[in-house]
């Protein structure tokens, strides 16, 4: 059976553009959360976000792509290029139909659409950019990455709020295992920090008005939204070896997605089942998991539910749990892939990044949350979880890869 390995990483995160910048910020506790600068948010009930500051799209993208891309797509294209470069992938030297693109997106192109809709109602339809036709669309990142780098293999787009990014990785793994591709550029990108996108986010009822994101804390009052992209190169291990890849970050050993029953149903929530299915696919026993990168909703009811699923699978305090996303905010479809990047670097460096901001974890949660400082440990297997608003659950198992 095909082994699927990560050979390239690309990150545009609020606390670091570039994989190593993000990773050092994560270990040193540097936060990307601050007052919103993209617009005047002073009149809104929530005013802090994990914004990617100082991002100059013209420095990263061909001029031709600027009139036709939303901010989220610019993040996706930038992260994809970083990942391909990091993986030493020269698409021109490989068979175009052997390379796919499978990405997730939760919001579409909010900022672009906000601007074009403002033209629509203030000036008329003839002033709306023709590029609005696709710049808003969830699948546009997959398409733009495919066109730019001439990757003509399987192309897919997943929409499952925060869970979508891990779902995309799972589909990439499936495409490789079915022999549909030898390499897939995969991950997620999202941004919705214009006034319209911001209204859509805080009106959902899960955003912390305080601007403080404290996963699993007794005082947790919501999350802080972020923006960014995390794109990875996932590859058939044999194909990677064939093109002379010397550095493999790790293996995507298993992934599973489940959907929660409707509110009021007597059936249990489905996060635990996603964990069990992903572990089963990886052939991994719970005792072999060395660290969990939790979804970490930052709302007591949801944190309690996640803690319960972890207790049921791993036992009370059975595995270290962490949430580096406290430093970035929730990146929606990019959140899961960014946690996978952090997990792979944890395996590489033998260190678990801490959960910033959280001081007081209720004893009844029964989780060993890594707090305050990085924790050194021998790590070979990590579990990454993501839940999307509306009932989506996704779990991914990554582990070290020995040639």
């Amino acid at each position, binding site marked *: 059976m095909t082994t699927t390995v990560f050979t390239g990483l690309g990150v545009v995160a609020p606390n670091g553009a570039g994989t190593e910048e993000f990773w050092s910020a994560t270990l040193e506790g540097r936060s990307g959360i601050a007052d919103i600068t993209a617009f005047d948010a002073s009149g809104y009930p929530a005013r802090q976000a994990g914004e990617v500051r100082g991002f100059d799209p013209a420095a990263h993208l*061909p*001029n*031709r*792509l*600027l*009139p*036709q891309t939303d901010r989220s797509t610019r993040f996706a294209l930038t992260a994809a290029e970083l990942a391909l470069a990091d993986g030493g992938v020269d698409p021109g030297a490989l068979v175009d139909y052997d390379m796919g693109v499978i990405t997730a997106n939760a919001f579409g192109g909010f900022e672009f659409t906000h601007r074009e809709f403002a033209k629509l109602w203030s000036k008329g339809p*003839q*002033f709306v*950019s*023709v*590029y609005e*036709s696709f710049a808003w669309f969830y699948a546009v990142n997959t398409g733009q990455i495919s066109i730019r780098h001439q990757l003509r293999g399987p192309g897919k787009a997943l929409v499952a709020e925060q869970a979508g990014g891990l779902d995309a990785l799972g589909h990439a793994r499936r495409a490789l295992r079915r022999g549909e591709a030898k390499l897939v550029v995969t991950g997620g990108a999202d941004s919705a920090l214009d006034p319209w996108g911001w209204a859509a986010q805080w009106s959902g009822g899960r955003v912390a008005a305080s601007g403080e994101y404290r996963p699993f804390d007794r005082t947790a009052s919501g999350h802080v939204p972020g923006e960014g992209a995390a794109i990875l190169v996932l590859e058939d291990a044999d194909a990677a070896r064939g093109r002379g890849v010397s550095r493999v970050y790790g293996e995507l050993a298993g992934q599973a997605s489940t959907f929660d029953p409707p509110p009021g149903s007597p059936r249990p929530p489905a996060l635990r089942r996603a964990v069990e299915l992903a572990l089963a696919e990886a052939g991994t026993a719970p005792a072999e998991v060395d660290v969990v990168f939790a979804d970490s909703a930052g709302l007591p009811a949801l944190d309690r539910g996640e803690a319960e699923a972890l207790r049921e699978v791993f036992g009370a305090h059975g595995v270290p749990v962490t949430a580096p996303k406290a430093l970035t905010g929730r990146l929606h479809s990019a959140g899961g892939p960014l946690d996978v990047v952090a997990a792979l670097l944890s395996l590489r460096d033998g260190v678990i990044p801490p959960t910033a901001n959280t001081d007081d974890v209720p004893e009844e949660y029964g989780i060993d949350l890594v707090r305050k400082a990085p924790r050194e440990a021998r790590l070979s297997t990590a579990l990454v979880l993501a839940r999307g608003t509306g009932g989506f659950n996704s779990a991914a198992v990554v582990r070290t890869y020995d040639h």
Partner: protein
Amino acid sequence: MSDPTTTTMTLDDLRRILSESAGSEGGQLDGDILDTAFTELGYDSLALLETSAVIQREYGVEIPDKVATPRELLDSVNGSLPAAG
């Protein structure tokens, strides 16, 4: 914004509009491009649609779908404009 009653559209006007509406890489629109196909210059049908929309707003004329080169486009626009003066 050009004044359609007194102005003809020049190649430089077209360069500016192409650049603003569909982008351009350094130097790509320089030189004698009057008879170079838009597709060769890297502008697809969507880029031309966006360019045509801007020209229509600025000059008040519709561009037929079939123009393939800058010369054809300029002839089409200037042939539709009222005589200068």
